[in-house]
């Protein structure tokens, strides 16, 4: 049995660690590239969103590499995502791949469902082994996200643009290689130190731009044309609350205990949207309301034809908490230069707004 799985950001690293420790054969399809996208687009129904097309591309490439068991998220809900695994299975069978699709209903079956599935995949390995491997995977995930947070801060103020990104790529490789907790810890500390020592523009007061929207396009840089690095190049500090580590922490461990990190966000969105509409629509609105004071502007990422995000996009302008929002719809047609132009214009607008604000303050003090 060989396992294949679609990409989402750097999620393949913790999974690789997990499967390696359990001795499961795991093939990693090539990271998302134009060929993956074209494969996905070619074989999907045209009206579906980019997460579907990219994950389908990954699955096809994994199947090409010999994977016979494919993992894909699923679950019931109002967003189409819950149905994707079924459609993809059908498409793959029609293409002639003899594969078995395993649906990961994480939001339904929680931690025990996930662990149970890993047990089945690992040919009934003992629970102690599974839990220790799972814990190691989680530690890697946390390390990656911790470094990414630091990178987000450095990108905005670094003297030589691109240094932080280079360090990030190296860090990911090092984390991938790390084989035990000690090396992992060392790598994490080492790279955070290196990031702290990057030459910075000490005078700069970077604009703070929040980034919110649909889970997959937020976390997969290929699908959003690496909007975070581009913003960093423009000297903007990006803040994002969605991280895979955060999500796993809450949805696997704390939600069953009755703690919900999203309760705060949902409460903020309540005056404008009273109910969960599936996907991340509710959270998008909540983030705008919640962070209006903190952020200079907000970038709202959504896949083209995403149902919940369209509702969110329609509701966003009517909130009382008024910060500029730029909605970027991601699909296979988006060109980088078009997006850059929009980002530059948006950042100019934010800078001008800030200037007006500081001028006003000065006048008052005079």
């Amino acid at each position, binding site marked *: 049995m060989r396992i294949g799985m679609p990409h989402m950001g750097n999620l393949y690293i913790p999974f690789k660690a997990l499967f390696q420790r359990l001795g499961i054969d795991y093939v990693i399809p090539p990271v998302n590239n134009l060929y993956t996208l074209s494969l996905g687009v070619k074989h999907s129904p045209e009206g579906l969103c980019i997460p579907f097309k990219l994950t389908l591309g990954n699955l096809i490439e994994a199947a090409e590499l010999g994977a016979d068991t494919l993992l894909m998220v699923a679950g019931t809900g109002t967003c189409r995502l819950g149905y994707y695994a079924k459609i993809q299975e059908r498409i793959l069978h029609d293409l002639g791949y003899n594969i078995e699709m395993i649906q990961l209903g994480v939001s339904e079956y929680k931690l025990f469902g996930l662990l149970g599935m890993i047990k089945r995949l690992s040919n009934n390995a003992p629970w102690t082994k599974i839990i220790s491997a799972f814990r190691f995977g989680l530690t890697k995930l946390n390390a990656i996200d911790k470094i990414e947070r630091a990178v987000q801060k450095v990108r905005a103020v670094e003297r030589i643009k691109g240094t932080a990104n280079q360090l990030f790529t190296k860090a990911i490789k090092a984390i991938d290689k790390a084989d035990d907790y000690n090396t992992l810890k060392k790598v994490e500390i080492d790279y955070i130190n290196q990031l702290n020592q990057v030459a910075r523009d000490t005078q700069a007061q970077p604009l703070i731009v929040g980034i919110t929207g649909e889970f997959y396009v937020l976390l997969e840089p290929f699908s959003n044309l690496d909007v975070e690095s581009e913003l960093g190049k423009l000297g903007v500090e990006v803040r994002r609350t969605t991280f895979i580590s955060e999500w796993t922490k809450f949805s696997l461990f704390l939600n069953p205990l009755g703690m919900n990190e999203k309760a705060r966000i949902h409460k903020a969105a309540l005056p404008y949207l009273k*109910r969960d509409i599936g996907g991340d629509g509710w959270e998008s609105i909540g983030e705008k309301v919640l962070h209006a004071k903190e952020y200079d502007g907000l970038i709202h990422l959504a896949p083209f*034809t995403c*149902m919940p995000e369209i509702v969110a996009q329609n509701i966003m302008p009517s909130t009382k908490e008024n910060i500029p929002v730029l909605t970027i719809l991601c699909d296979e047609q988006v060109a980088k230069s078009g997006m850059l132009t929009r980002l530059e214009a948006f950042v100019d607008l934010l800078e001008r707004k800030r200037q007006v604000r500081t001028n006003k303050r000065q006048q008052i003090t005079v």
Partner: protein
Amino acid sequence: MIRVGIPRALLYYQYYPMWKTFFEELGSQVVISPLTTQAMLSQGSSRVVADTCLPVKVFLGHVLSLVEKCDYIFIPAIRSVKRRAYNCSKFLGLPDMTKAVIPESPPILDIDIDINKGKRDLYQSIYQLGRHFTWNPFKVRQASMAAWQIYLDYQKLISSHRLTPPQAIERILGTPETQLEKHSSHLIPTQDTIAIIGHPYLLYDEYINHRLIHRLEQAHNKVLTPEMLTAKELESATARLVSKAYWTYEEEVVGAGQHYLASEADGVIGVMAFGCGPDSVMMDMVRQQANRLKTTAFMSLTLEEHTAEAGVVTRLEAFLDMIHRRKRRQVEVCV
């Protein structure tokens, strides 16, 4: 008397008789928006972002036409009407979205309908809705029972007499709904049987589909619609194609598509709105099935506000010609 406005769009075709009875039993007057016009559509679409789907834009146009004509507008948020099958996000966000993009609208009566939460929750929602008109729970109960009875009658009427929803609404409530003049096509024998599948709000809104049914009938075709099948037939056909429907209102697409592709019809036309989430998946399933079966011709017609009448007519003519030729060839082969 309190006036409650109901937009003639989206779920209107499924539930209007029920809603009307409920509100009238509670002593209010029901105001309904007129048939869709160009002005309504363009006003509706000027309020929302471009990616919003056509039916929602039409819906907002209807809401705009009701502003100042009523005291409340009824827009329920229907999450599910069946266990473990959910509804499109746009239906769920509809009340809040309307409030956000049409701030001048009268207060919106929104209730959550979610069968998954159980009966108690449903009754509570209905009572909450009734509270706007009366404090008396028995009166609300009576009204909802009467409404439910009308709904059952309405469904029976549609499937037993093979009526389209507008015709059935006309019969059951006695209000004229259709503008269609009766034409004398009965003299000429009908040529082909064409099934059209899709959501009622696309099939029966004559403005947005450019009078599709009328055109087909004028060309002497017998038109079949999803409502003409019984719930059982739809369910079993759906089960054959996708095992279990994931969305609530998709049986009328998948079930009807599968049923008509396998029997009865000479051609099937799938009508969907551009950017429709559930349909993008489900209509594709039907299209693939048509490819697999290779017995019945299938055409998918995607509607949006820029769809020109001439384009629809051309495609329709070509499709009908093709079916015609196909039939003739079959006859020749037999001879």
